[in-house]
């Protein structure tokens, strides 16, 4: 790695950095002052290229500073002209910066770095610090493989509707989200022109195909989770057939409602359900009451009857008199002794005397 990178860099570095110009430019600045220099103007053009080559605008200025310091310290001592060593130093430092910036990659956990060497796939970096050839040779595309992304289709907002036709030719308003991640970073990069858009289109297609198989009531209610699973499975099959490198993690139906236009009718149904329930509740209460009453009365009869059987005649008499007492005690009574004659009796004394 070290050896080949050194060998590979040199010519390109010289070309890109415009080393000789850069060196001379520094020289003239330091030595000749900053006044406008007529003949040197053409030379001031090339150094502008440097930031581009060095991949960082900070590079050159820091290097300028370093060079100036170096010159101040050693310049006097060096017997030969200070031009040549300085630009060599400059090139070396630039090379180092460039190598550092484009040859070392930090791959975070959950990411992979796909390396292409002169366009050709050359391996995948696992997480960690990784080294590659510098920029024009190797290109590293970092792909977050573990991050789970979410593609939202339809929205749960009340004004936005995503209508679909169900198997029983009703219409449903559906909003759902697909969670997915990248299983195979190379395929993700190399196989599809628009992987994200593909996920969306495949999701729509798969959901509609599944919804077309079920009835409206099933889609709204009990089969939701089944539909979610079926859509996820179908999506995975389609995406695999495209060699997309995408893994579907799950489909979640956020909303499955009848369309707003018929919502009232659906509410009417649930109102009817409530009504039916309340009819039933009333009937159950009535039934309960009636049964308890019957049980109570028959139990009471049984008790009395048991006693009656022990002494039928006396019990019967006693009950008769007690009842008469209570009935007649509270009523106005008239005893007709003979036709045409009426006598008014005192209210309370009569029953007492009669009870004996």
């Amino acid at each position, binding site marked *: 790695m070290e050896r080949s990178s050194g060998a590979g860099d040199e010519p390109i570095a010289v070309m890109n950095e415009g080393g000789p110009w850069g060196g001379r430019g520094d020289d003239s600045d330091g030595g000749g002052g900053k006044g406008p220099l007529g003949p040197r103007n053409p030379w001031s053009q090339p150094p502008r290229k440097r930031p581009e080559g060095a991949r960082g605008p900070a590079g050159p200025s820091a290097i300028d500073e370093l060079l100036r310091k170096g010159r101040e310290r050693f310049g006097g001592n060096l017997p030969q002209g200070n031009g040549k060593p300085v630009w060599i130093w400059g090139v070396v430092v630039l090379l180092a910066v460039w190598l550092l910036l484009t040859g070392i990659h930090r791959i975070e956990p959950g990411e992979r770095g796909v390396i292409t060497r002169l366009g050709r796939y050359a391996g995948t970096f696992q997480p960690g610090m990784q080294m590659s050839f510098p920029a024009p040779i190797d290109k590293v595309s970092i792909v977050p493989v573990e991050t789970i992304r979410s593609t939202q289709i339809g929205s749960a907002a009340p004004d936005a509707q995503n209508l679909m036709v169900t198997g029983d030719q009703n219409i449903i308003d559906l909003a759902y989200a697909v969670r997915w991640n990248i299983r195979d970073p190379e395929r993700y990069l190399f196989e599809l022109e628009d992987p994200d858009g593909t996920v969306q289109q495949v999701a729509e297609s798969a959901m509609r195909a599944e919804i077309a198989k079920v009835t409206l009531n099933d889609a709204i209610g009990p089969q939701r989770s089944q539909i979610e699973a079926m859509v996820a499975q179908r999506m995975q099959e389609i995406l695999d057939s495209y060699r997309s490198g995408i893994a579907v993690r799950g489909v979640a139906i956020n909303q499955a409602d009848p369309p707003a236009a*018929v919502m009232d009718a659906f509410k009417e149904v649930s*109102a009817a359900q409530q*009504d039916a329930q309340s009819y039933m509740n009333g009937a159950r209460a009535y039934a309960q009451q009636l049964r308890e009453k019957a049980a109570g009365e028959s139990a009471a009869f049984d008790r009395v009857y048991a006693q009656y059987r022990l002494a039928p005649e006396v019990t019967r008499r006693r009950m008769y008199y007690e009842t008469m007492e209570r009935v007649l005690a509270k009523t106005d009574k008239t005893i007709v002794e003979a036709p045409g004659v009426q006598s008014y009796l005192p209210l309370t004394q009569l029953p007492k005397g009669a009870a004996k």
Partner: protein
Amino acid sequence: MLLFSTVAIVPETKQALIVRLGRPVPGVYNAYKPNEDYGRTGAGLIFRIPFVDTIEWVDKRVLDFDMDRQSVLSTDQLRLEVDAYARYRIVDPLRMFTTARTERRVSEALRPILGSSLRNELGRRTFAALLSPERGQLMDNIQVRLNRVARQYGAEIVDVRIKRADLPDGTPLTSAFERMRGARQQEALTLRAQGMREAQVTRADADADAARVYADAFNKDPAFYDFYRAMQSYRTTFGTDDANPRGSSNVILSPDNEYLKQFKGQN
């Protein structure tokens, strides 16, 4: 400068074609082959003669195009708005270049064909069949038909799929809503009626149960029950067992009354 105009980098995602003074050179760099491994493809450096060769790039990836919304009439005269998409790949870049030049033109050439074959295929079925899982066969037919045209452009159809199949706005949608509404109203009526029926049955069951319980108890001695019940009845009727009696009673007794037999001092 010379170096850069001599070599070019072919990425994994592209196929390259060299056109020498306007004539395509046979042979495609990094041509698509099914199931090849990355890294062993033709991607990498290629050389060309400066100023004489130009490189034409052709996408190697799966491309897609969306069809414009089509209005389809089923055999039972129901209208359906259909959205479909197709995915394809350029498998013969040379042919593609000579017939269409760019991928975009291929898409544009295939789009109306997808539209018309979709209309033809769907128009031969009933509305219910469009929604049924039988759609798979239908899509295969369309794909075959589209593929025949795509081959002429050096492309291969990977997949054709209906994305959406909706009722058009306006009358069809409104009448569908109307039908749904009617069905729901009917359901609501049915639910209420069922509730009533069940309530009635529940009440009747309870009545029957109570009757049975009473009969079981009272049948032990009908004569005594008669007496016992009469006594209860008197108390209730004459208001003595009632917390707030309704109306007052006025009793006229004949001396022959059973109750008054001791009153007369007979016996």
